[in-house]
Structures are given as C-alpha cells and as structure tokens.
C-alpha cells in the first residue's frame, strides 16, 4: 500500500472507531481516540505504534466485512506502522527495507555473508579453520580477537547509533504536549506496560493470537523471546568482563556465567521465536498485514539462526567444525546487528515511546481531573 493510502485508510477506519468506541476496554488505542476530530500524521503514527496487533478488535468489530464500512483496524494500523518505520528510520535509506520488507532479509543475509567472507579472509588460510582445537584461547586461534571484536563492535555500535537516532526522531514527532511532571510520573506505568506486555492481555481474556478464540500464548512466547535476548546480552557482557577484567579468555565451561546465561537465554530465544513463528503460520490471515508478517518472519528466523548457531558452536567446539561454526555464528551475529535498525526490532523502541506517550496523557488527564475535583470541593 503506498504511504498516503496507508494514512488515509487508517484515518477512515479510526474515525469510525472514534464514533463507536465499543473496544475501549481492549487496549489503549481506543481511549486515545476519545473525542478526537483531527488525525495529523504524527498522531496517526503514534496510534499505529500503540497498537499491539492483538486483533481483538477485529473479532469484536460490528463493522468488519461484509459490512460496507469494511473496518479492519489491525491491518490498517499495521500498514501504517510499517510506513511509520519507513519514514522515521535513520539513515533514511533504510526506509526501503520497510516499504519492501523482503529487502530487510536480503540486507541481513548479505551482511552475514560479507562478515563471514571477511573473517575467513582475515584468518589467513581457510584450511586452518578446520583444525581441531580445544581449551582456553582456541576461539582466537581460529579467528583472531581483533577481527572478532572489530566486526562485532562496529556492527553493534551501528545498531545502537541508528536505532537511537530513529527512536529520537520518532519521539520528537509524537511527543505529547504535557507538563514535564506528567512525563516523569508516566515513566513507571509505561515501563510496567512495556515489561509485562500488559496489552497482550486484551483487557483480561487475552488476545486473538490465531483466531476467534482468546489466547495468551503470544504474550508468553514474546516474554520468552525478549527475556532470552536480554539474557544473551547479559551473557555477552559477562564474557567481556571475564576476558577483559579477569583475563580469562573464552571458550568458557557450561557452569560459567557467560555460557550459563547464554544457554538459558538461547533456549528462551529458540522456543519463544519458534512459538511466535508457529502463531504467525497458523494465524487467521484476514486481520494480518502481509508486509508486517514478512517483517516478523524475517526477524524471528534471524534470531533462530543466531541462537541455533550458538548452540551448535557450544556443542561442537572441541571438534574440527569449531572454526567454520565460529565463522558462521559470528557472521550471523554481525548480520543481525547490521540489519537490526531495518527490521521488526524497531518496533520495540517505537512501541515503548508510544506507551510512554499514552501513560503521560493519562497522567496529565488525571491531573486535570484532580484539579477539577479539588475546585468542585472548594466551591
């Protein structure tokens, strides 16, 4: 869907929603429509990113097709959400990866392959990679530390800088006009909503993850996946500490902090991402936006490949395939980080920003109501 039509379709549907409001208990998108007459582009982008794609409103909608209004809010907001990534991402060239979501997958594969070729080239002789090595320092014997750390460092720095810049641009566009105090007070509730994925509860019964029945599986799998990613980041930091603070080079045993955290996190990522992929495969297509599905699948598959290559490396690190597996694992990690700013991963900071605005507007309106109540009492 071209950008203008994504916005105009979202506005058409949201007007119907704002006149109806039957779904106001399902998620924060609907309360954010209350009394709204105008839909400037920034507000549309905010609403699109506030939507958790839980699809509860699709099954509850009295105006869904075959009704002539043909309301399909989940797909309208998903199309707009993708467009909001495309127009906000920095550098802007990455926007193409959201307008044609298969490009993101191409980018990540290309970056991973390039990283692998670079590693092999830097390691001197490819044949030497197949040598059996074991014990402390064996990884760096296969792939020099400077190559590994250099590639990882550059790609991670790129991901952080790009995603931070994109998030800042998004926040600047959607930031609510509320007092600073309301924003400060909203930080706690917003953080709680982000960490608990409260809105994947659908206001109580759960969401329509697959079909008309309610389920909380998407929330569970998302927790597993996000928690797994967090543990893997912690594992990486722990490994850096072991090496640089305690001068203990990898590989580490299973009972060490880096491998322990990494293994638990890896299981979370493998199971969580597989669960989300299975839901994506089984889900009713009617409320799904194809482009968003492609983004989801590309990101989840990338996570699976990184996590599984990590497990393979751990299992076979004392054999002749350690070297090639190390190249593959580092290559996929580098590919993931290079692609991160142009993938579904962008939804995490954008949704967090949208939840912060929703919580801040809630606090600001509570403040006004409180002041009004106080005035009434004093009269």
């Amino acid at each position, binding site marked *: 869907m071209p950008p203008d039509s994504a916005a105009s379709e979202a506005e058409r549907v949201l007007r119907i929603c704002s006149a109806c*409001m039957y779904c106001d208990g399902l998620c924060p998108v609907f309360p954010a*429509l209350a009394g709204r007459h105008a839909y400037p582009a920034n507000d549309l982008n905010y609403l699109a990113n506030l939507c958790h794609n839980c699809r509860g409103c699709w099954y*509850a909608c009295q*105006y869904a097709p075959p009704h002539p209004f043909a309301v399909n809010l989940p797909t309208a907001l998903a199309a707009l959400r993708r467009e909001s990534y495309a127009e906000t991402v920095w550098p802007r060239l990455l926007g193409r990866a959201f307008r044609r979501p298969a490009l993101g997958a191409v980018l990540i594969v290309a970056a991973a392959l390039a990283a692998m070729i670079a590693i092999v080239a830097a390691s001197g002789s490819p044949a030497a990679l197949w040598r059996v090595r074991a014990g402390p320092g064996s990884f760096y014997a296969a792939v020099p530390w400077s190559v590994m750390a250099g590639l990882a460092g550059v790609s991670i720095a790129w991901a952080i800088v790009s995603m931070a810049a994109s998030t800042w641009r998004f926040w600047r566009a959607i930031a609510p006009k509320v007092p600073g105090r309301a924003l400060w007070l909203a930080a706690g509730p917003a953080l709680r909503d982000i960490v608990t994925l409260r809105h994947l509860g659908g206001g109580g019964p759960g969401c329509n993850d697959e079909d*008309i029945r309610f389920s909380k599986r998407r929330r569970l799998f998302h927790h597993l996946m996000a928690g797994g990613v967090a543990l893997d980041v912690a594992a990486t930091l722990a490994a850096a500490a072991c090496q640089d603070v305690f001068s203990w080079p990898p590989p580490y045993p299973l009972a060490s902090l880096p491998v322990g955290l990494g293994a638990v996190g890896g299981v979370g990522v493998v199971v969580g991402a597989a669960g989300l992929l299975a839901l994506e495969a089984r889900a009713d297509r009617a409320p799904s936006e194809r482009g968003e599905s492609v983004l989801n699948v590309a990101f989840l598959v990338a996570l699976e490949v990184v996590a599984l290559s990590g497990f393979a490396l751990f299992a076979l690190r004392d054999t002749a395939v350690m070297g090639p597996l190390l190249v593959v694992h580092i290559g996929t990690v580098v590919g993931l980080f290079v692609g991160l700013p142009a993938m579904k991963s962008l939804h995490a900071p954008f949704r967090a920003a949208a939840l912060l605005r929703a919580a801040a507007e809630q606090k600001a309106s509570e403040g006004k109501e409180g002041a009004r109540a106080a005035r009434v009492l004093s009269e």
Partner: protein
Amino acid sequence: MPATADPWDVLVIGGGLAGLCAAISARKLGASVRLIESAPSESRGGNARHARNFRAAHGAPAWHSPGVYTADEFLSELRKASAPQFDEGLAQELIADTTGLASWLMDCGVRLQDPRVGVVPFSRRTAFLLGGGKAMLNALYQTAAGIGVVVGYGAEAVGLADRPDGGWSVEVAGAERQRIAARCVVVAAGGPGADPEWLRAHFGPAADGYSIRGCAYSNGHAMQMLIEAGARTVGDPTTCHIVAVDARGPRFDGGIVTRITAIPYGLVVDRDAARVDIESHDVGRTHYARWGPRIARCPGGVAFLILDAGALERAAPTALPAISADTIAALAGTLGLDADALARALEAFNAERSGRRHPLSGPPFFAFPMRPGLTFVHYGVAVDERMRVRRRDGGTVATLFAAGMIMAANILRSGYLAGLGLALAAVSGRRAGEAAARHAAG
C-alpha cells in the same frame, strides 16, 4: 423435501441474543436444541451486534456495575418511558430476572468491562460488554456449540405447520430447503425493522428513504408467520424509534456510528434551505428520538445540519467526516441547496439569542446531511410470563414461544431506555428456553 424423523426438543429460530440465551438455557436443562440463524456466520447475531450495554437491576455494587439500581427504580423508569398500557406484571418479572443476568452471561463466557478501564461513562443502570455486542455474541456462539447446540447459518424459517403430536414442523429456506421437526419452537428472529415492504405498508413511501440502523436480516418474517398462525399482536405498527443519522451512511446496519448527535450545536435546514424548527435544543439523550421523526416529516425526508468549527469541536466524533466549505455559498453548492436561502436561514439563526446556544460564526462551515434512521418498531406478539405466544382467540400456545424484540412491545410501547433491548432479549430468551425445555421433557 426431507423430513427429520426424530423431532428436536427445542428449535430456536433466530441467532441473536434472545435466541442464543434460549438455546443455551434449554440445552443446559438437557433438551436437544437446534438453532437456525438466517444470516451467514460473518453477519450473525441480529441487532445485538450493534449493542453495547445491558440494563440490569442490582441491590449491591458489583465490579462491573457500581452503586445500586433497584428493580423498583428500573420499573418506574420503564413506566415513564413506555406508554401507559403495558404489561406491568410481566415487566416486573423480567426486571427481577435482570438481577442475575450479568453473572449468567459471565458463566457463558461473556466478558464485561471494568468501568475504571477505558472511557465508558459511569453507569449504575447498565453493565458494559468488553468489546461490545459482537464480542458477546462470539462468546455465546462458542458456548452454545460447546454444550451441543446445533447451529445452522443462512437458514431462514419460511413456514410453520403444526404436527399431530402437538409439535411443529418448520420449513427452512437456505442452501437446501428442509423441514425441521421440533416439540417446541422459540421464535427469536427480531422485529420487522429491516423489511422495506413492511415499512412502506405502515409508514408510507417515505420509509424508502429511511436508514435501517439494525441488521438486514431482522426482517420480521418469522413474526409475521406467528401472526398468521393466530398470535395476538401488541403495540402499534406505526410507532417506532427513529433518530437522525448521516444520510451518507449505509442503508442497513449503520448501528451506532452514523447517528448525528450535534443537532443542539447548529442550524438545521430542509432541502429548500428553510430552517427546520427542531423544538428542543436540549442535549439530553432522550431527545435523539425526537429529531428522527422531525426529519422524517421534512420534504423528501432529508435535512442538513450546519455547523462552524467551534460547533464541530463540541460535537462527538462522527464516522464520516463533515462536509466542509470556506463560505456558506460554497457549502450550499456542495449540498445542492439554494445559497441565498441558506444565507438567510443562517442570518436568522445567528440573530436569535436563545439559551446556551452559540451563533455560527465560521467560516469554514461544516455540514452533515441527515435522514431518519430506524432503530426498531414498537410492535410484536403478545406473550405470557413463560414467553408462550398468546392467541388472538384467547389462551396461549403451549409449544410456541417468542423472545427478544419480537415480544418487547409487551412492556415497551413507546420510547426507549439505554440497554433495555439487550436486557429484554436475554431474560426473555432465558425464560423461553427454560420453559420450552421443561415442556419438551414433559
């Protein structure tokens, strides 16, 4: 045409709220239950699809219903809304039934909304459905299927014949024509709101210009079938609930979102751009039902609401954006109205100072074309306290029941109360289903 050899204990005609409540109640008492819904599954559920909340008496606050709303208060409000001649005894019984309605629906999987969540208005009189009427219907259909109610879609009852054993044989049109035999039949297929011919017969040719706010399948044919079979009627077929709706909305199924509520903020003119005197400029909810009939009396059954930016801002959001123009002449052009006449009407409107009304200072100016939107007709068949159909020649039919809007006129002869339609549908459906199951069991 195949005839089913073994009759069902209960056949429910109509898959709206009343029909589902009847089917579930009957099945819970052990009856074998067949339910036929004339709509396809995507459009199932009758007018309950467009409902949001149900009125229920409660003696103590509940998490979903704050405060207290006694049955006496409910009855006195009903008495005020309805014309004097209504079945007060039946009303009392049905109101008493509403006290257990919320928990019964929740037991059937229906989710209610916590009033502290979202932006629902504070209401001690009505409980709100999480996600609205269609979400409730989805839950009830799932529950019904889960306990063994056999549901058929796209199946409209077109004939009712009695059987020698005292039961009924119902002729059903649909994908295939069939006859369904049943010991008891509950008719819960709605009033005649969506039958253009019936409306023309009772409201004249102007009815062709009405929007039907409810679903296109609620055509009253099953009600007509009961009347032809000797049922006594109640209410007045020419009394109905009509509100002002956006003329650009769909012919059927506009529901809540095409309603125009901003009339108190602006100027209303007819197609000749002459001022329409919509006497009450009160924003109170009961006045919605006065504007509709007034528009129906306008030439061509259309009217236009003219607003400026301030008035539009005060108005509730609308499904379709207002038509806008930079000058009143340009607005008249877009609406196909006489520009001079509209300017004169606006001048006269602004010269008047009445109450809290703001003059329309514009430009820009905004407009909503309006037509009458029919909600329901105050007409149906008479029933006793078990929802058994009363006969014109006295007595009741032991095996024929009516529930939902088809019997609402027994206790609501005019006007409306928020959430009354759903409440009546649910409690009359439950009564009908239970009575039918007990009768079928012997």
